[in-house]
């Protein structure tokens, strides 16, 4: 997971990095599966691998520049990369030090029994309002994205997610 993510961030080829990222997302899903969160894993795959990846790939293809421009490495970008690496390394150091140093209470032995029905009931009852808001957000995002991406009067709706 980490390797593919790192490689994705390093590679020059946009398509390759997108595909590697998808791999990384899929491995996050595998992690969920390992942790016993089946439903979240499938949702992760469905949303990230099935939907977001498509959007990303479409976006990459729609905004493809000439290959030459991507190859030139400006001095500014090198400087930026070094700062970024420094910042990232600092943060990684601090976080892992903090994680290693902290003590957690003992974990429960078995995974909490979470059936799909339970999740559904929780979503609909306790988190009903949040669910509603998420629905509104998704609708607004759909319409907004279509409006943003569409220029011509007639355009197929699947061009935007």
């Amino acid at each position: 997971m980490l390797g593919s993510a790192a490689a994705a961030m390093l590679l020059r080829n946009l398509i390759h990095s997108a595909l590697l990222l998808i791999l990384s997302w899929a491995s996050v899903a595998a992690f969920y599966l390992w942790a016993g969160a089946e439903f979240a894993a499938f949702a992760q795959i469905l949303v990230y691998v099935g939907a977001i990846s498509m959007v990303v790939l479409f976006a990459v293809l729609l905004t493809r520049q000439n290959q030459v421009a991507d190859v030139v490495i400006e001095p500014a970008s090198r400087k930026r990369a070094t700062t970024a690496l420094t910042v990232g390394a600092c943060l990684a150091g601090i976080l892992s030090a903090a994680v290693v140093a902290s003590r957690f209470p003992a974990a429960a032995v078995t995974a909490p029994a979470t059936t799909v029905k339970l999740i559904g009931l929780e979503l609909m009852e306790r988190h009903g309002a949040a669910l509603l808001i998420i629905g509104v957000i998704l609708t607004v995002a759909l319409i907004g994205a279509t409006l943003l991406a569409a220029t011509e009067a007639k355009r197929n709706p699947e061009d935007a997610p």
Partner: protein
Amino acid sequence: MTFTANHLWLIPTLPLLAAGLGALAPSKDRRLAAGSAIVAMAISFVLACLALQSALQAPATHAVANFAWFDLGASPMRLGFLLDPLTAFMCVMVTFVGLLIFIFSLGYMQADANFKQFFCFLSLFAAAMLGVLVANSLLLLFICWELVGLASYLLIGFWFHKPSAAAAAKKAFITTRIGDLGLLLGLLWLYDATGSLLFYDGGQGVLENTALAALAGQTLGGGLALSTAIGLLIFCGAIGKSGQFPLHVWLPDAMEGPTPVSALIHAATMVAAGVFLVARVYPLMQIDAALAAVPVHALTVVAFIGAITALLGAFIACGQNDIKRVLAFSTVSQLGYMMLALGVGSWTAAIFHLLTHAFFKALLFLGAGSVIHAAHHEQDIRLLGGLRPKMKITFATFAIGMMALSGVPFLFSGFWSKEAILHAAHAWDVSHLPLYAGLAAVVLTAFYMTRLVAETFLGQPRSAAAEHAHENSAVMTIPLILLALGAIGLGFLGTPAWPWLQARLSGTELHSSLHHLMEGSGLMLLSIGLVGVGLGLGWWLYGRRLRTTAEARDPLVVTAPQVMAALANRLGFDELYAATVGRLNHFTATLAQGIDRWVLGGLVNFLAQLGVFSGTVNRQLDEDGLNGGFDQISASVRGSGQRYAQAQTGEAHGYLRVMAVAFIVLALVLVLGGAR
């Protein structure tokens, strides 16, 4: 398959769905709107018949289906549906007459551009009316009652491009609102007194003994029982809706609507809602009759109002020349009869008359509609005439309706129901004045109906329109024939010899014997004689010498011109209201305007002047004193702003970096600070 109160909501819902469908349907799709309305009505009719059949199995019980609507504080607001013989009979009548009128409308409104809206409104009206009937809560009843008012407004003003129709719609709406205000007050008071608005609720309802005893037990100032006061307020609603004196003025004007509307709303169903309401809350009205200490009984008021209305309506009807207005005043008069019956203590007789009246009055209105449709919307009876050979079916059915209304003995339903009322009035021990009023109205009814038929159908055609009239299509005649059959047959359900209907309504044993027929024969003979007098008088004045030209003067106008002028002017009620209520209203409005302009306006103007003055002073101070300082301050703010703006590079990376560093700092602080 049993039909219970739980299924009762279906009956009003189906027409409501049809109305919704009609509202959504495209304007040109006539078949959809009319078809859905008629089909929904037909299904409702079948369901109502099922309801009747199930209600008759246990006529003395009130089957209810109550449910909570919303919570009001701690107590739930509950609504419900009620199935008893009264509801069931009324539902069958409304759906059956309504169905026939819907079918009739197919022909009558054929050429109208707003055909679809018409059926939509009709369905809405039917839904609301059925809602009134099935309600087991005064609140639900009131909601539907107001919906009925709305639908009637829409339908009376259906030809809204005619100023008179728009005015009539407004008049009907506002006049009935006056009565409804009383009903609303009564409703609120009742809720305050009992904490419930359900009619029947397993012993807890307002019409059941516990609540009634509590209501009758309390007295107000002047010795008036609480139940009497509430009953009278509720009766106000009935006065408005049923066109009783003194709020009868809207009903004749409502004839501006299309004729099927007049038949449906202003003859058969809506105006009957008032009678139905009083019959529904009858236990409440009745409870004070037992209290001798109470100075005025609710039902006494009802009886006298009814008597006045019956007589007044019949009188005015004699002086009208518009075919529909004659029928309208006749309706006012007949509703007076029903109220009279309610007042004198025989609510079954009132409902009996309501049912028979619905049939024959709908028949008369549809017959009038048939005449009007054939005569190219000519409504003045002086300009009609000679239609008998041209429109045989219409004439025959109209004549049946006329005889039923006049109370021609034995064969016609109106006779039996009117007899029942007169007998009840005779048996009333408080006063015999209502009986005399009723008897006088009998004569007048027979008289004006004879006049109407003679003028409209006999003699020579007196205008081009009447000349070219011809019989209408089957869509319009078949409802007439069916209604005519009803107008004849329905009477036999409630003859004194076999009072099946009354017994079923009140849930008592059925005693049938010819003996009962003989018992009241004296009064019956008297009323038969009076009907004969009325018919004879009419024939003598109008039938003997038929009118030949439209300009010829009416025989009565010749003999008593002032009286007839006053009658034609409807005894000047409209002018009276305009001179009193209208004038008062205008005066208050003027007064309010004066106060507004001079007192309040003056104050506002003064304040404004004050504001202008202080503003001038302020400006002087500002420009000279403060501005210099502020200019300097703002210049320095602008300068520092420009310096800060340098930080806004527009580069997202820069911001991201700042955020990341800040995050690192935060993490460090948290880790080193030992935050838990």
